[in-house]
């Protein structure tokens, strides 16, 4: 068995995620893995990762404590959406569970029946995650499934340069070779289309059996060298700039990211340990860059940088012996789904499908097919988010002047509106209750609910809901204060 070689081009959180996973999973005696760390700056500066991050960290063997020792990393309990479909709108998409079922009837239907009967409870009040987050509390979930605290689901917020460093040290410890250089030329075999070697500015030339393009939007290997084009602009949200800045905080902020719609775009504010970071997507024909800078300054955000932004996906993500992970293959705005989560999903998918260096045709086709399905699902989330806010948010309104709902989004919407039900798809991004929280948060309320709620006595249901709310609130108050918890954790 000859030893094979994989070269990853581009570092950053994306490149080092790929490196760490492959090094952790591919035997060292069979595969050499080299990472060419280039001088390019990451387009993403901060990530609000959902609870799905943990299984990835388990796969690469990275302990959470290492991440938490970092001066920026913060726990995340959910995202608050503000002012999208009406001015006073505030609802959370919290991870974890909402409420509880009663006699086998699921919570969503109980909630909806009660809502339709006039008791417009705030759905957030039934999420331990949301209530705890708003109270500035945090604790790890209980491993005892009988405990109410097992309902907590948390993610992590990262400053990405710093997170990339964590991943890098981890990957180096696993045995990754690193070369610090920029790639200056790519040679390809004219017949097969395979990449044959890379020329580096360090005068080296490297050859590999598989090349992984983590060069971001530049897409040095897949786009530039292999000529894979952008397929469509279906994910375009009509914002062409993104401004990023931060403001230091003297005390720890609650673990909630906030996503707010404005007259010229929308912004996300993500709390880290010592600061919060703003990522503002806007349309340059609605507001000038200078005005954005001034506005952010009045809010206290400094070190503002503004970059061009566009959404796209390429026709393929893996051709010949070249695989693109991250922005080199596709880019979309992180309205609901973290782009780095789809990076993690992509590498895991690759790992799952990659069986042999010399037999990749069918794996490649399947990888490309699944990747497009995943992007279709992301697009569906973006589309429905825009749809729900089209009469209030400037960006969403513009979006619908040039888009219409895809048939799958329309079906999902109609199914929820008519009977409060959910359709299921491969590689689903949100759970049923998360979809329900999204719709209800935007005041899209089903006309009807599942028949089995009628098996329950109305009085009993009202009593159940008010007790549930009280129990959740009391339980949340018993969770430690976030700052205290972190202090004791890092001791």
């Amino acid at each position: 068995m000859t030893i094979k070689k994989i070269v990853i081009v581009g570092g950053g959180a994306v490149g080092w995620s790929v490196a760490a996973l492959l090094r952790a999973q591919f035997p060292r005696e069979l595969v050499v893995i080299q990472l060419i760390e280039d001088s390019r700056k990451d387009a993403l500066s901060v990530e609000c990762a959902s609870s799905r991050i943990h299984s990835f960290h388990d796969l690469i063997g990275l302990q959470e404590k290492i991440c938490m020792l970092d001066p920026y990393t913060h726990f995340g309990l959910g995202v608050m959406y503000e002012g999208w479909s009406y001015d006073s709108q505030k609802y959370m998409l919290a991870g974890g569970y909402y409420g509880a079922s009663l006699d086998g009837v699921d919570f969503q239907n109980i909630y909806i029946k009660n809502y339709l009967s006039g008791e417009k409870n705030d759905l957030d009040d039934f999420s331990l995650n949301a209530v705890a987050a708003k109270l500035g509390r945090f604790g790890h979930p209980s491993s005892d499934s009988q405990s109410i605290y097992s309902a907590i689901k948390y993610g992590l917020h990262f400053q990405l340069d710093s997170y990339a460093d964590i991943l890098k040290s981890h990957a180096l410890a696993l045995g990754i070779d690193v070369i610090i250089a920029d790639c200056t030329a790519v040679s390809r075999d004219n017949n097969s289309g395979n990449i044959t070697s890379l020329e580096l500015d360090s005068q080296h030339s490297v050859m590999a059996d598989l090349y992984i393009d983590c060069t971001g939007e530049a897409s040095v290997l897949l786009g530039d060298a292999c000529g894979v084009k952008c397929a469509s602009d279906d994910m375009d949200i009509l914002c062409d700039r993104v401004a990023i800045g931060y403001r230091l905080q003297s005390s720890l902020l609650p673990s909630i990211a906030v996503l707010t719609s404005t007259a010229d775009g929308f912004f996300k504010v993500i709390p880290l340990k010592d600061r919060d970071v703003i990522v503002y997507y806007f349309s340059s024909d609605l507001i000038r860059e200078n005005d954005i800078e001034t506005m952010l300054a009045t809010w206290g955000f400094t070190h503002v940088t503004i970059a061009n932004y566009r959404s796209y996906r390429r026709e393929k993500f893996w051709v010949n012996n070249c695989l693109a992970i991250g922005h080199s293959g596709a880019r979309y705005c992180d309205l609901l789904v973290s782009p780095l989560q789809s990076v993690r999903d992509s590498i895991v998918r690759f790992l799952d499908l990659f069986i042999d260096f010399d037999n990749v045709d069918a794996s490649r086709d399947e990888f490309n097919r699944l990747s497009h399905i995943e992007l279709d699902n992301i697009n569906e989330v973006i589309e429905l988010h825009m749809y729900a806010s089209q009469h209030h948010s400037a960006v969403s309104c513009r979006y619908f002047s040039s888009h219409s709902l895809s048939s799958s989004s329309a079906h999902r919407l109609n199914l929820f509106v008519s009977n409060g039900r959910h359709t299921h798809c491969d590689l689903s991004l949100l759970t049923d209750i998360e979809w329900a929280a999204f719709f209800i948060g935007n005041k899209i309320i089903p006309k009807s609910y599942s028949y089995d709620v009628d098996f329950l006595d109305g009085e009993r249901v009202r009593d159940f809901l008010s007790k549930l709310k009280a129990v959740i609130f009391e339980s949340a108050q018993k969770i430690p204060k976030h700052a205290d918890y972190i202090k004791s954790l890092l001791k």
Partner: protein
Amino acid sequence: MNQHSIKKIVIVGGGTAGWMTAAALAKKFLPINMDIVLVESEAIGTVGVGESTIPHIRGFNEYLGIDESFFIAETKATFKLGIAFKHWGQLGNDYIHPFGPLGHDINGVEFHHYWLRMQQEGSKYPLDNYSMAAMAARAGKFQHPSTDSMSLLSNYNYAFHFDAALYAKYLRRYAEAINVKRIEGIVAATNLNSDNGFIESIRLDSGITLGGDLFIDCTGFKGILIDKVLNAKFEDWSHWLRCDKAIAVPCALSEEKLTPYTQATAQQAGWQWRIPLQHRTGNGHVYASDYLSDDEAAAILLKNLDGEPLAEPKFFTFKAGQRKQNWEKNCVAIGLSGGFLEPLESTSIYLIQVGIQKLLDFFPDKNFAKANSAEFNRQLDEEYVRIRDFIIMHYKENAREDSPFWMDCKNMSVPDALAQRQKLFKSTGYVDHQQYGVYAAVCIGQGLIPDVYDFKINAFSHHKIAAYLEKIHGNINAAVASMPFAQDYINRILANTNQGKPL
């Protein structure tokens, strides 16, 4: 109660589908006063499909609260650990589709990759050797799986062979006991709403008119409501599944001990089933009439019985396919009225069950929202197509050259998604886990051997893997040896069961 709630359900047709539906709906709507009527006629026979099942049937019985021992006594049931496929793929082939896993995954690499490497390096042991279900089936052994997940004796699943007519009879008693009203009669006419075409009522030959909010068509191939009245289109799949006839005959039990598996033996233009029950063995020959005459088919079947025939052979004609909309307006087709797939993988009762489950998941109100029935249809289609493709795969993946039927099957083009899936398995051994059954076992059994195994396992020496596989096989052998014979096990259950105490 909601003013839009469905208040009356009319099920047309008894038989397995009708009574399973009636029982499940009656159980579900026990807390409220749902009016459920089932119309059937003694004059119309039932097909009585699917004497062989897959493990999901147990969930259905559990939902209804039916005690397993009672069920076994009542329906003359026996245990089933899988399906043995003989002469499939190649004359002389003999493999089991087991109800349960193969070996164990190690380091995130599925077991069949380790087996593949050993084959490439000279080993001849069949994949069955590493499956608890397959090994126990071959040895004629059965006991309930252990609840201790650490024990090898927990590492399999099971289903039943049973008498479908007795099952329907039992479910009828069950349903009638919880307020399902049975009416004897034949549908003579249907009354549709002139505005929206919904079924308002049916008139029976006795002159009775039955109104309802929701109609369930369990009338079998005829599809009296869904087809004749609502004209829901049928999608023909017979170009992939060429068998269009079956002949069935029960025979006396053989001298041999009870086999806890279904036998599916490939013949020259179709295949033959053998399903052992407590009191007889069910046999049938599914064949393609383009390639084989009825007489030839009957001769093949009768020649291959392992006991005296107990009745005259019965012939069935069918066409593989599915109705495009199993739910049309206020009518839902469940069972053969919705679609037909040959019983090669024992899925007939399973498909009835899926229809019922999805009907409960998407149970309508009187508004009958289009999105709701569309989602029901979409999910049911997905299930039909999944099983359809799995069955097509058994025909496509063959290297037989002894008959025109098999050669034509080998050369046919199959649905794209299946072709892609097979290509992926052949070139990499990758299994899409959304697929039906123990996919790798069936592909490999059919002779579709992946070209490569996962390169990561090259980090282990041949010796280490060989020793590991030998250990698994040895442990399975020891576990199987400790199990009782299926025959003895079932006798013991029957001896301890108080018969005749329903519910």
